[in-house]
């Protein structure tokens, strides 16, 4: 089916290669970035749902 339908499109072979490259680059970059995040900051961020604004008891 590949050759039957898509063979006529110029440069079609680049698509699978492009997919792989995009994928590998994206994940390498993301994993490098997340591994370098500051642990203390992450600990603070993870507590955000638990540190909500205080109720205004006066009103």
């Amino acid at each position, binding site marked *: 089916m590949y050759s039957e339908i898509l063979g006529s499109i110029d440069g079609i072979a680049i*698509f699978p290669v492009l997919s792989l490259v995009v994928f590998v680059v994206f994940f390498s970059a993301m994993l490098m970035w997340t591994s370098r995040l500051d642990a203390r900051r992450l600990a603070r961020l993870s507590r955000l749902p638990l540190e909500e604004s205080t109720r205004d008891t006066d009103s």
Partner: protein
Amino acid sequence: MSTPFLQAEAREANANIDTFAYDNAIVRKFMVATALWGIVAFLVGLTIALKLVFPNLLAFIPQLSYGRLRPLHTNAAIFAFVGNALFVGVYYSLQRLCKARMFSDRLSALHFWGWQLIIVSAALTLPFGITTSKEYAELEWPIDIAIALVWVTFGVNLIGTVLRRRERHMYVSIWFYLATFITVALLHIVNSLELPVSFLKSYSMYAGVQDALVQWWYGHNAVAFFLTTPFLGIMYYFIPKAANRPVFSYRLSIVHFWALIFLYIWAGPHHLLYTALPDWAQSLGTVFSIMLIAPSWGGMVNGLLTLRGAWDRVREDPVLKFLVVGVTAYGMSTFEGPMMSLKNVNALTHYTDYVIGHVHLGALAWNGGLSFAMLYYIVPRVYGTKLFSVRLANIHFWAATLGILFYAIPMYIAGITQSLMWREFTPDGALRYGNFLETVVRIVPMYALRAAGGTMFTAGALVAIYNLYRTARMGTFEAEEIVQAPRLRPAGSGATERHEGTSAWHRALEARPAQFAALTLVAVAIGGAIEYVPTALIRSNVPTIASVKPYTPLEIEGRDLYIREGCVGCHSQMVRPIRAETERYGEYSKAGEFVYDHPFLWGSKRTGPDLHRVGGKYPDSWHFLHMRQPTSTSPGSIMPAYTWMYDARLDDSHIEGKIITLRRLGVPYPAGYERQAAADLGTQAARIASGLKSGGFDTSADREIVALIAYLQRLGTDIKARPASADAGPPSAPLAMANAGGR
């Protein structure tokens, strides 16, 4: 957590305290809608489940026939029940995570009432057969436009709130909410491109293979970005809240987010394995589906491990019970999904009830479980009281959990049983169950068990609503929850940030939700583009088979009746290149046979047999008898009768417009043919009717049934007129499944 940074931050903050109110009224509105539409969705589902056991149930009302109610059920479950529930989660948690009221009360109201109006309009159109037939996108074009407008209203309100937040960092839940808004908007608009014929009728811009690819790119990612990402946001907020401890790993949640939104969008073609879709696209769908296990399970593990040290509380707290069962079911579904996208497994499970079991595990346990957990969490809090009865909540929990098991397990058994029967050969090489009905009759008891499971789940939901109602009655509703929070300081001035020097660009990104949303769009657009562009490049005439011709006017009308009655819900039109299928149905389907199909009608479920090669298989009289009383030709059939099509006069008033519209979409009707169409329609109808009359069947040419028979008799016949060529084997060519991938 009393670190020096936090103390410093607190000192800085004291000077600028804002007092404001959370809008709980909008949360309550969405909660009421969730409960109400949930029950509607469950009851419609139960009705159609019972119809498969008792085909004559309510059979005298066309509007309540199986084919028309099925899309009503799926739309009600997805967009009415789960949709309203996700808005409950977003409106409740977003305000608290942003420490800000919703951006605009007016937009909130517009969003709420607009969404309910869309649901009502779905309920008023689908039973009347007003449908595009594309799964989970059945609503016609005026409603599609309304959906786009209301969705943008939601998006403006969401982003506006994020922009006005009093907490610099956007917690990971908000990322999931932003990705939901962006991607659903993109999916909805691309998949809904259609050309109107009249106020409530349109044809898809795409045809055949392209339409199928776009539809399942949409269908798969609607599951991803409507049923999954918002609920992951909800999971990341409500599990820490309910367990009163932070998420297990925030780092993992970041990886989870980016990996999930990037990978999900590529996996759509796994809905089209073994179809006429290009092989490279099928393989791409499979590979990315398998990779999806990693982020999905990362998310599940992150959710469940958040409960470390708090598992004892799961025994007592109904909120945690529903969250745990929900997240576990998410893990099961997201393992099952990739497995089903392996071609050999897919060949077994596709078109069967296995898929129905799979989706209900996700919908009832994951979406349903998290939705009810949210309701049990929020209602007592906004009413300033405790849950009316923990015992009733436990009864609900067990009814729901057992109901899901009684639903899913019979469906798994039914799916595998039927599929194995479909492909079983005798030693002589003939199909052991050559009559499709033999495989249906075998699984009807499973359909009955499924209905019992659905009843248990619905009964549990009713108990929950009673419990929540009594809870509300016990307390006082706090529509405006007055709170205080420090104002947001200009970026870069905080003590905390000065101490955490790394990754400034990342913080900058988080501080700007618009840019963050744009990056999200890029992430999802990459997969979408790589999947879509090559197929879009195929000019519709490239794979054309010379003998494939456009439909006649009468066949167009018949096809529209096929769409109106929702036949596609039970009958596929896609013979896969598998020996068991070519043996049963005839030659496998070719991409070139669908180039004039606006929309495609490949279907996704075979409650009845495939119809792509049904044309010419039986005489007109067989269809005439079968449609009026299916059991007369097929004893034991569970197909409903379509008696109204014998009385109703065919409405062909739009045939001219239909021809013009289809020509605009690329179907090669000659110029001016629209003026001749009505006459051609009459001639063909008269020919079919006179044939029926001569066989002793009482009908007239202007009845709907005649048009439907014309369409059914045309199906899959064009290719038979084609001269023999290399890729068209004889109808019974035993193509080995292993070879199918290498064509």
